[in-house]
Structure formats: C-alpha cells, structure tokens
C-alpha cells in the first residue's frame, strides 16, 4: 500500500528553485532514503512534507489526504513525525517530559479535569507516563528519564529525538541525518535502531550522508541533485546508476 505520494512537488525561494518537479512514493513499512549532495533540496523536501514550508506547486498525499496546504501541527496529528538535522529537543525539560509532550495530541482530558484532578486525568496521566517509559526502554534511555535533555551527550540527544517522534504515535517517521556527527560504533547502533523501526511497523523516510547506512538499510533510494530527482531505485540499482555516479558520487571523491 502506498502510504505517502509526492506528485510533481516544487518549491521556489524568490528566483531560486530548491525543489523542481519531484515525484515519488513510499510504501507502508518501507525505509526510503533520500540522498544527494549538499544543497540538493533534501531538508527543503522534509520541510514541505511536514508543513513548515508551503510548496510552490504539486501535491503531497498521506494515503489519500492532501497535506500540502496544512500547517505543521495538523500534519503532525495526521501521523507524520520528524527529527531535525540540528536537534531540537525541549532542552530544559527532562527526557521523560520530552516524551510526554510528544503524546500531547492523544490526550483527551481537559483543563478543568486537570485542575480538579479527576479520575480521567489521573488514569490518563498514569498511562502516559507508563507509555513514555516504554518508549525510553525501547531506545535504552530509561536511565536518563529524569535528566534535563539539553545536558546530555550528542548521541543520546539524537536517540531522544527518535523516541519523541515515535511517541507521537505517527506511522511515518522522517529522520534528518540521524547519524551526523556520530562515531562508527554509534552509527552501527543507529542503523540497527532504524531497521528496528520497520519491525515495529513504522514507515521511515531518511536523509542520510553515510553511504554505508543508506545502502545497508534502505528498501528504496531517491537521489536529488539541485532540486531535481535524478534517480530512484533499490540500493544495487542506485549504486550502478551512471547518472548518480556522475552527479553525486563522482563529485564527492572521498
């Protein structure tokens, strides 16, 4: 089943075309990677998908719901969660509180019952906290639950962002360079973690620079260059695509 369908999406800033006529689809349960040199428009694409930027043209369908005109919070509630390239945690909140905030949209009780501490409030808060701990355990973060998230190590912060994205309950998770700045050991761990998301029934859209990660876990790969899609296919197909080698791999010699 096609979970996300992007149809001839374009985004212009003034006269500059950041994305030009990009189309692709993501099957439910897949890991799809988006690669391309710096400035290819990958993060702009994420920003359009999550409502932080309004695309100039084109459409974005989540199953059959049009997203391109919706604000970010509506899209979040419809089931797309994301992480950010430069990590955006609620830094002065504890790790646990970060996860609690992520569950916001699912909470039913109102302010009045919170003030009166009704049973509805107590039951729901209790189950929220239990669920939050579960998410933390899933990523091996439970020991950090009471720590302010901003004071933690870089690798842990990246993981908390993923836990937070999961806690929203979204079916589609967008990860923006999850292994950036990690050592090889941490990168391997992150790879295993992302593969595990698929096991949990999540669909993953991944921006990644590390080719080992991309080739190792992707079901499909979309290659962008200067805002244009130049290739799409399975990892072996992409590896042997002459256009990709010329435009992307050929340029980055290292």
């Amino acid at each position, binding site marked *: 089943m096609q979970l996300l369908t992007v149809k001839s999406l374009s985004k212009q800033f003034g006269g500059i075309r950041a994305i030009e006529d990009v189309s692709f689809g993501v099957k439910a349960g897949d890991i799809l990677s988006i690669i391309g040199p710096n400035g290819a428009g990958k993060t702009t694409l994420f*920003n359009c998908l999550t409502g932080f*930027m309004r695309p100039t043209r084109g459409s974005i369908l989540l199953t059959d719901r049009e997203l391109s005109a919706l604000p970010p919070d509506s899209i979040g509630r419809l089931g797309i969660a994301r992480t*950010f390239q430069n990590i955006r945690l609620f830094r002065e909140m504890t790790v646990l509180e970060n996860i609690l905030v992520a569950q916001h949209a699912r909470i039913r009780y109102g302010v009045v019952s919170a003030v009166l501490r009704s049973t509805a409030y107590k039951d729901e808060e209790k189950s929220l906290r239990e669920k939050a701990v579960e998410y933390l355990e899933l990523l091996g973060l439970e020991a950090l639950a009471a720590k302010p998230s901003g004071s933690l190590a870089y690798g842990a912060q990246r993981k908390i962002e993923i836990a937070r994205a999961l806690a929203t309950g979204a079916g589609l998770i967008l990860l923006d360079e999850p292994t950036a700045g990690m050592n090889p050991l941490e990168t391997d761990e992150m790879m295993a973690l992302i593969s595990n998301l698929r096991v949990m029934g999540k669909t993953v859209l991944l921006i990644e620079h590390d080719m080992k990660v991309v080739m190792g876990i992707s079901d499909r790969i979309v290659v962008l260059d200067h805002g244009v899609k130049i290739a799409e296919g399975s990892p072996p197909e992409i590896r042997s695509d002459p256009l990709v080698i010329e435009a992307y791999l050929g340029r980055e010699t290292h």
Partner: protein
Amino acid sequence: MLLQQLINGLTLGGVYALIALGYTMVYGILELINFAHGEIYMLGAYLGIIILAFLTAAGLTAYSLPLSLFITLVLTVLFCSSYGFTIEKIAYRPLRNAPRLSPLISAIGVSIFLQNYVMLTQGATDKVFPSVLGSGGFEFFSTRVTYLQAAIIAASGIIMVLLHLFVMKTKTGKAMRCVAQDKVMASLVGIDIDRVISITFIIGSGLAAVAGVMVALYYGLVNYSIGYSAGIKAFTAAVLGGIGSIPGAMLGGVVLGLAESLGASYISSEYKDAYAFVILIIILLLKPEGLLGKRREEKI
C-alpha cells in the same frame, strides 16, 4: 496652517529619523531592539545643556556663539558615543549567545538605570536650556520657518546622506553590511565582529546625541523621561521604514513626524502620543518588514 504643520512635522521627523538610525543599525547587526537607545538621546539632550551652560559660564558663548555650539555638539557626541560603547560592552556583549529575549531584558535594565541615573544626578524637574539662540527665522510661502527648524531638517538630511555613503563606500561600512548579513561568514573572511559592533554603537549613539542637542535647542527644556517616548517613536519610525534599512529609517522618521504633527492638529492632540503606538502595531501586524525592508525567512 497646513504648511506650518508640514514644517513642524518635518522637523520632528528629522529628529526621529536620527534616533531611528541607531535602532536600525543595531538591529541590522545584532537583531536586538536596543531599548536603551532612547536614553542615549536623552543623555545627549542633558549633556548639551550642561556643556553649553559650562561654556557660557566660561565666557565662550559671549565670545563666539557658533564656536560654542560647535564645541557643545562635538563634546556631546563624544560623551554619548562613549556611553553607547560602554553599554554594549557591559550589558550586551556577554549576552551575544544567550536566548533572544535576554539582551532585550538587559536593555530594559539599562534604560531604567540611565533614566534614574539622570534623575538622581540632575533632578526630576525639567531642566531649562540656556536661551542663546534667538527665535530668528525666515518666511517661506508665507509660513514662518525658524533657523533652528531649517538647521534640524538640513542637518538630519546631510547626516543621512553621509551615513549612507559611509556604509556603502568605506571599508568599515562594507564590513558592517557583511556582519549584518552573515556573522559566521564575516568572521571567516577576517572581519573583527566585536570591533564592527562597537563602531555601530558608537555611530548610532553619536547620531542620537546630535538629535538630543537639537531637540534641547528646539524646545528649550529637557526632562529625564523624554528618552522613553522618543525611543519608542524612533523605533516605530525604524520599523515603519523597514528595520535594517538606512533610507527606511529616514523615510519612517519623516512619515511618523508628519503623521504626529498633522494628527495632533487635525484629529486630536490629546492622543498625540498614541499615534506612534497605533502605527507601530498596525505596521508590525500587517507588514512587519516595513516599507523598504526585506523579509527574512526563519531557518529550520
């Protein structure tokens, strides 16, 4: 009547524009609303009075009025620039990387401090400017323009042009524009950012000092509280013209001065001070980039 109001408005506008430049330059570079900038203007007005009174007592004014005024202006600019320089060093520099609202709150602190500093040292009552200038003037289309009004309008115009040339043509000016656009890039190409920021404060404060002296001469009296409302009005002028833009500050100042002077005579003078706030709110809500400014996109 209308022409008279236009001239009054233009005079006022010139003063607002001079103060607005300080806001616009600092905001362009630091993205900080320098709340204390209005107080620098107030300091300028006080220092003008103090220095001119001193020179008069020393007998220089009787000897040569223009020389006396010139020295007053130079010394006031010197002092105010020093104040601006010092304030930036003490109250803003340590907060360069703090959350966005911290320097703004610090600036409010500086503003309160300076107001009370002047009130305690100079008294809470109005201070009267030694009347050294006659009320001489000339007729212009059967409207009376005092020499002072003409001087204020001319001086603010000339200063504006000079500043524009400075920013566009000189090496320091180019460095300022560079820092305003991208601090990281600027430091990579070897621009000393701290120095550029200091220069910005020195120039901005100097311009506010000129405005202060001229207003003190124009109205003949000052009070420690004049900085607050003049500051807000000048900030409004800066936002109106498009914050970060030097011609914008000029345009905004003139528009605001005219609006205030025409509004006071044709709508209601009781709400004279409210016009600036109303304009500020409307412009921020409808067109926050101002008349001549550019829209900035926030990075995600």
